[in-house]
């Protein structure tokens, strides 16, 4: 992967901000993986370790009023958009203080205040819902936009194409971001895609579409800023396909290079290009230490909170079935 050097226009506070978010996500997910064997998190977890740079780059182009539609592999986007950490971990522990009061679980993180509009565990099916949010934003002329994350597998669902056509037809302010990590569970693209021309295909809807392959958080951020800027000015949807790699197993806390479906050699270049380490290297060590220490505290607090905060009362089972 060609490593683009740090763009000149990046201000120091931006750099530390991006690092802080990348690092927070990484530490949170590593802690989830550490705690997982204790079986306190009774919920399937899909870690995004190694893919954080996409969420961080995209969400840096967003404002609080903007929305993100995430996936079941959504810890990174949830946190990058400012989703509440304590509520997230509490949700994974199935606690009442969870962001969905224990009714969502790891696959359905939500934080409407922060603009995280939720996730579907039925792959791809959150895409039309995100498009509906964009329709409402356009109707209200608020200038707000929606970023909709999806995986390479999700792009195989018909509703993805239906949504693209509708979003382009109505010039909706939505940025579709395909996190292409090359696999759906254990199945490689070669068994699922007739061709590797997704970006080109999306462009035929009249949607500006770009494929980013350098694994660089700044590349993603700049592309997202450009796309979102055009939308706020009244432009329609945009599309980014971002190459990335899932370091851990599809679901669960471990690595799975011993399973035979993919070689560890695939991982190496991505680790070499790890954006968390890269940005740490671009900051001065003292600041890195400060940030890391603060994050360590925050994360420890969040897990401690999740541990002690109470479970929902079984009698509350029927709450929220109807509004």
């Amino acid at each position, binding site marked *: 992967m060609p490593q683009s050097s740090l763009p000149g226009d990046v201000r120091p506070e931006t750099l530390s901000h991006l690092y802080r978010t990348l690092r927070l996500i990484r530490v949170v997910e590593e802690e989830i993986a550490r705690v997982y064997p204790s079986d306190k998190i009774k919920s399937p977890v899909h870690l995004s370790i190694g893919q954080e740079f996409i969420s961080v780059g995209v969400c840096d182009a967003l404002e609080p009023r903007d*929305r993100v539609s995430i996936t079941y592999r959504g810890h990174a986007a949830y946190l990058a958009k400012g989703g509440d950490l304590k509520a997230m971990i509490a949700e994974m522990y199935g606690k009442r203080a*969870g*962001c*969905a*009061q*224990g*009714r*969502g679980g790891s696959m*359905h993180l*939500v*934080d*409407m205040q922060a603009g995280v*509009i*939720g996730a*579907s565990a*039925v792959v791809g*099916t*959150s*895409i*039309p*819902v*995100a*498009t*509906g*949010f*964009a*329709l*409402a*934003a356009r*109707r209200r002329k608020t200038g707000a936009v929606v970023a909709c994350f999806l995986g390479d597998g999700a792009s195989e669902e*018909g*509703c993805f194409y*239906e*949504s693209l*056509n*509708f979003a382009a*037809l109505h010039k909706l302010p939505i940025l579709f971001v395909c996190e292409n990590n090359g696999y759906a569970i254990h199945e490689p693209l070669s068994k699922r895609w007739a061709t590797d021309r997704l970006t080109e295909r999306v462009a035929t809807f009249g949607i500006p579409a770009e494929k980013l392959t350098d694994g660089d958080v700044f590349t993603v951020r700049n592309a997202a800023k450009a796309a979102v800027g055009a939308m706020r000015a009244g432009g329609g949807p945009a599309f980014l396909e971002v190459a990335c790699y899932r370091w851990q197993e599809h679901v669960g806390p471990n690595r799975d290079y011993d399973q035979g479906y993919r070689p560890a050699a695939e991982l190496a270049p991505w680790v070499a290009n790890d954006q968390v380490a890269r940005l740490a290297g671009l900051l001065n060590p003292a600041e890195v230490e400060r940030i890391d220490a603060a994050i360590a505290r925050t994360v420890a607090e969040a897990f401690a909170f999740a541990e002690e905060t109470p479970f929902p009362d079984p009698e509350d089972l029927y*709450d*929220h*079935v*109807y*509004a």
Partner: protein
Amino acid sequence: MTTSTPEGRLLRYVDALCEAFAQEMRRDENVFVFGLDVDDHKAIQGSTRGLLDEFGPERVFTTPLSEDAMTGVAIGAAMSGMRPVHTHIRMDFLLLCMNQLVNIAAKARYMYGGTVSVPMVVRSMIGKSWGQGAQHSQALHSMFMHVPGLKVVAPSNAYDAKGCMIAAIRDDNPVVFMEHRLLYPTEAYVPEAPYEVPPGKARVVAPGDDITVVGISNMVVECLRARELLAEVGITAEVIDPIWLTPLDVDTIVESARRTRHLLVADNGWTACGAGAEIIAGVLERAGPDAGIAVKRIGFAPTSCPPSPPLEAQFYPNPGTIAATVHAMVRPRSSGWRPDPERAKLAYQTQFRGPF
């Protein structure tokens, strides 16, 4: 006919629906009506007539043939505070929307811990007769009644059509709104001012002592005709219209059935795991065996809907078959009475002419 109040004007079912949309769209700018062909000159048989002119293409628009995604779009818009009314000219097409309706619309509020609501209405029309065939004739309400988080309503007359639509639009939950193509021309007294026919209350549309007959959607009309035929042989049937199928007002039905000790549900759908099964099971769980209630279901024949007229006639319940079924239940010992098929016909059925 089933109007609970003589106030208002005589209005057709289809016009009552249209009036509900116009009044609600005036009241609340978050309400919008979309779906294939809502904005064309036929205006969904007239049920969206004039809306485009009054409210413009931002609030009244057609869509690509993408029912699955359009349902998701409605959900997303609803989650962000709008009140979409998504229209389908046949209920059969909702089968393309099942994932969005059942996996997302029904679950969003619960799954997201009460932090969102999904105030949307899904309108669909049941097609009947005149060769509609297997894929343009289904009434799938029981599939939606099965799913917590959805509400389901099936008005049988113009008065309820307007009141239920207004209630559905104002409801903060996803509502599956079942219309019936053959009811569109039927008239009832409809108040001009907006009003709600709220969820969860059934209506006794005609009193009787010998049997309780529950009719669903257009079957209410057919049950009332059957009631007339039965009156001629001295059987009085109490006809109940549940109106809302979810939430379902079982109590009103139990109360009646305890008295008549006979319960027939005439559905305009298949009976297996259908609304009739639910009503019968619900009534008997409450009433218990000591109430001694005899029960029966009548509905679509357990086949796909055939377009050939003689097969189609056999496929649907009608006032004649309903009356005959009632007679066999109430007077089991007197053998197979049937009303004159000609007299069992319904006005609107003899009128109806295609293509659609």
